[in-house]
């Protein structure tokens, strides 16, 4: 189980990542926590909520909070466009929607290929990434730490 203490994810040989873009950054999430990817963007704003909360949506009768990942991580806020999708993930027994700018493919990567996040990702942003992967297509894929992105404490109450 514990071949590398820094990256416990490297234990199993291959993991599948659901990949998407946040602005120009190519990111991936462990597919096991992804429930579905949603095209329906009927989001109801929640006034006075933290700025990274876009609003709430109806997921088959369940109220799901939609979070603007870009904003939470510290990028520019996402702009909802035709390509925008909401990735529904499971976090702490709750479904939460993550807004992404564009979804791409599902990649299978070897855990051995996961490298530390580049040191020039600033400390604050760095905590949102578990590491990076150099893909076969010669792209850099950032492995997101969903729980870090979904912590509630961070954010400005208006």
């Amino acid at each position: 189980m514990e071949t590398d203490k820094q990256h416990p994810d490297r234990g199993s040989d291959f993991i599948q990542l659901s990949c998407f873009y946040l602005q120009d950054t190519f990111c991936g999430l462990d597919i096991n926590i992804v429930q579905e990817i949603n095209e329906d963007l009927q989001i109801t704003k929640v006034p006075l909520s933290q700025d990274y909360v876009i609003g709430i949506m109806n997921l088959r009768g369940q109220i799901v909070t939609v979070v603007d990942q870009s904003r939470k991580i510290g990028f520019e806020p996402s702009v909802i466009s035709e390509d925008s999708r909401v990735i529904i993930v499971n976090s702490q027994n709750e479904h939460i929607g993550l807004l992404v700018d564009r979804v791409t493919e599902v990649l299978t990567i070897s855990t051995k290929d996961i490298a530390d996040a580049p040191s020039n990702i600033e400390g604050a942003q760095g905590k949102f990434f578990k590491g990076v992967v150099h893909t076969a297509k010669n792209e850099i894929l950032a492995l997101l730490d969903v729980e870090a992105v979904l912590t509630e404490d961070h954010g400005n109450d208006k």
Partner: protein
Amino acid sequence: MSGVIEDEILQMYIQESKEHLEDIETDLLEIEQQGENVDEDLINKVFRAAHSIKGGAGFLDLTNIKELAHKIENILDLVRNGQMIPNQDIVNTVLEAFDYLGELLNNAVDSNAKDISEHIEKLTGLTVSSLPEAEKESVSNLVDVSHKKVPVSFSLTEFDLKNGRQGGKLIYIFEFDLIKDMERQGKTPFDLLKLLEDGGNILDLIVSMEAVGDLDDEEISPRLPMYVLYSTIIEPDLVGSVFGLSDTCIYLIPADHESMESSEDHAEEETSEVIEEASPSLPAKMPPPPEKAAPKPSPRPDKKKTIKSVVSQTDTLRVSVGVLDQLMNRAGELVLARNQLIQSISTGDKQIIAAAGQRIDLVTSELQETIMQTRMQPVGNIFNKFPRIVRDMAKNLGKDMELELEGQGVELDKTIIESLGDPLTHLVRNSADHGIESPAARKEKGKNQTGRILLRALHESGQVIIEIHDDGKGLDPEKIAEKAVSKGLISEDEVKTMSAKEKVNLIMLPGLSTAEQVTDVSGRGVGMDVVKTNLDKLGGQVEIISQLDKGTVIRIKLPLTLAIIACLLVSSANERYAIPQVNVGELIQVPAAEVREKIEKVGDAEVLILRGELIPLMQLGNVLQLQNTFYNPRTGTYEVDRRHQLVDERILTDTEKTSDKRENTDEELTTAERRESYASDVKIVVVQAGIHKYGLVVDKLHDTVEIVVKPLGRHLNKFEIYAGATIMGDGHVALILDISGLARAANLRTMAETDRAKQIAAAETQAKEGTSRQTLLMFHNGPDEYCAVPLHMVLRVEQIKSSDIEFKGGKKVIQYRGGSLPIYALEEVANVEALEDREDLIVIVFIVAGHEVGLLAVPPLDVVEADLKIDEETLRQPGISGSTIIRDETTLMIDVFDFMKELNPQWFESGTEENGLSAETSKTAGNCSDVLLVEDSQFFRDQVRNFIETEGYAVFEAEDGIEALQVLDEHIARIGLVVTDLEMPNMDGFELTSRIRKNERFTHLPVLALTSLAGEEDVTRGREAGIDDYQIKLDKENLIKGIHKMLHQG
């Protein structure tokens, strides 16, 4: 061993144990009451509860729980056998032990680490004391019971062992294999324990972990033996078949081996087994029971941690099978209806589709109802803990009281039941602590010495009512009102217009707790407001009905369920929001034409004038910081901000500017223009929640719908402005507003608005009643010269044109009510600016020394309420008593008496002749013609004294009834009339009057009551007390007439 099995079992055990504990209190209390004639069934019931808890605890290795339950069991057994008579002490000890047992169960995993010695000692003490001398030792003496073929040995007290053998019972050791006998056969250990308990008594049981081995072991043993030390009357040849055990797993323990006492000579059948004697000749003192756990496998603690996390998360509910069956039926119907629908859609037959739709509608609502039923729990669940609470309190407080319960079967939603516990406890404790008097006090009042508290639940018009009655001392409305005033929660003037019931209900204002001393039992400085807030959260309403010395009824109205509520839908900035119907008072649409009349601006705040009440207005859009939709008078268009824009604006980089611009334009709109923005109808929802009542201005009002409340996710559920969200028919999501949360969120502004609005409302009502000592009529004299007179001095206000003024005989007069009214300008006396020269003027009419006079003034007129901090020096001059600051303007206070004195000194010298009161009369003061004025408010006292003195009478003053009696006592020779206020601290006017009437020396005195509002009730009450006449406080004319009349009669 698999941790999962243990977790499940542990949870089952905890749940079951808690169920056992539920009724214990009630049962024990009943046992206590029955005393000697204790009902055996009842004892058995409690005994069984303790017993099952013990059994399971042994199985799960919860040694502390087992030990404690066991000791309780011992006591109960003694009671059952008539060896002990349950008295209060015994029941107390047992109750406490059960309480602690409950506590241990709440955290069963850590229970072994808790200290139970205190309870054990007490219980053991009780057991010992009830035994005959010779047997006393047996309680503490431990013996080991073991068997050659059994790898474990049991350690128990001699006393227990003896009990196990009583009545010719046999003692066995059974060996069950939890894996082979249980799991593989689909049984749970509890099934087994139940079976065993039905057939006899489990003295002890041990699950042998050693047999399982460690994970590190090469081979994992497929056995998990559990050894049970069992006492039963079943014969050895039957035991095997009863419990499904092969004979090799049954070991009979012969009677003589462990018994030290020759008397215990049971006729035992012989046994081939050889018994090892653990404590060979003497009952050695064994280590205390908890240490028995020592030989258990060491990895235990780690395992427990994992159990803990699982245990704390589960939340289960018992549902009757009938309801589940019903649910199943409904689900079946739903499937049928769906099939019908799908079929009819494919054929396209509209009629059948419609029919299917109807059917689905019907089934859905039935389904919904049934599901609701599964959540319904009887209120008895929470009621049942109160007998104990009341009993304990009675004991602690030295009071004598009993609690009656009614309607325990009334059902409420689980969530409501759960949240109801705390507020109800608070209320019941309040009743017991503050309501019910001490037996002595009750006797004195002629009441039954035993106080009675009734807690009952009932259905009423679709709601559940819970009432707490007590026949205690009741609440004193005056005291509460006084306290509310002294704490600055309401103004004295507000109090005057309040009914007794309203005053009593003031107790629910935050920051008002009437407990004069904080007792240990209740009233830890937290007041009824906490109760109210808690109940508000449940959508409940509280009402208090109280009669002094008769008792108090607290009535709580609760909705049946919280999951589905009726809501009013509104929209603001194109988003829909739901407002719970319970919070909605009324809906008001102010037509554009009436906006100016009905909506007032107070500073920055807007208030709605609704039937004389001022209601602060809050724009939903502003509170939520939405871009409001507004009418732009410049473009003449109705600008609506679309949601996309909003989203865009939040995201685009250059939007900052756009939104800035928008704000600027908003700000550029002057007040006047903003008023224009009301050019369309204003829709207001008047909402009320707790202490908050306000009007919510929304863009649109929609329907009232039944909605299903859905919780918000963890990022949002901390916002108090939302109660949750709901999904609308079209699939969109709407937020549900929390009305009190919303008010709190807008705290700074709205609370200020509320206060301001209250002040204004107070000023308005006072203006009507003319009662305020702080209400001023403001007017202008010079263009920027602000003047004010106390409003109660003003007789009338007339609007005139400057051309109406006639100059007759060197005096200015106007025609007024068929006569001439002399009018004066302020500048004639005081050194002020000349009256502004303008067309429309105002004449303020006063009566001074019996003369009607008019003072010329310049509009606008205004009525304000202000603290009269009058600077009596800086601007003091004839006709002006000083200055004060009102609304940031220096305002001259006009002294009308002084003003007229300057102009017409003769009125004040020969003075009162015109009123029919001769100068001599006033000079004969000392001859029973002085007036005693009793009034608690200083300012008001001064004013009335002024009136009376102007009429030539000498005035004695007193602040309340008590002081008045003192003054009367000293000066009775001079006093000819008592003029008294009714509402006063310490002793009110009614009381004062009846005392006067009862006192021979004073009884001849006429009493004239001053009142702000002479209600029928007050008048009758006053007449009964002996009040001769009523006058409205500042109706000067009539007041003076009344005084004349009385003094002359007198």
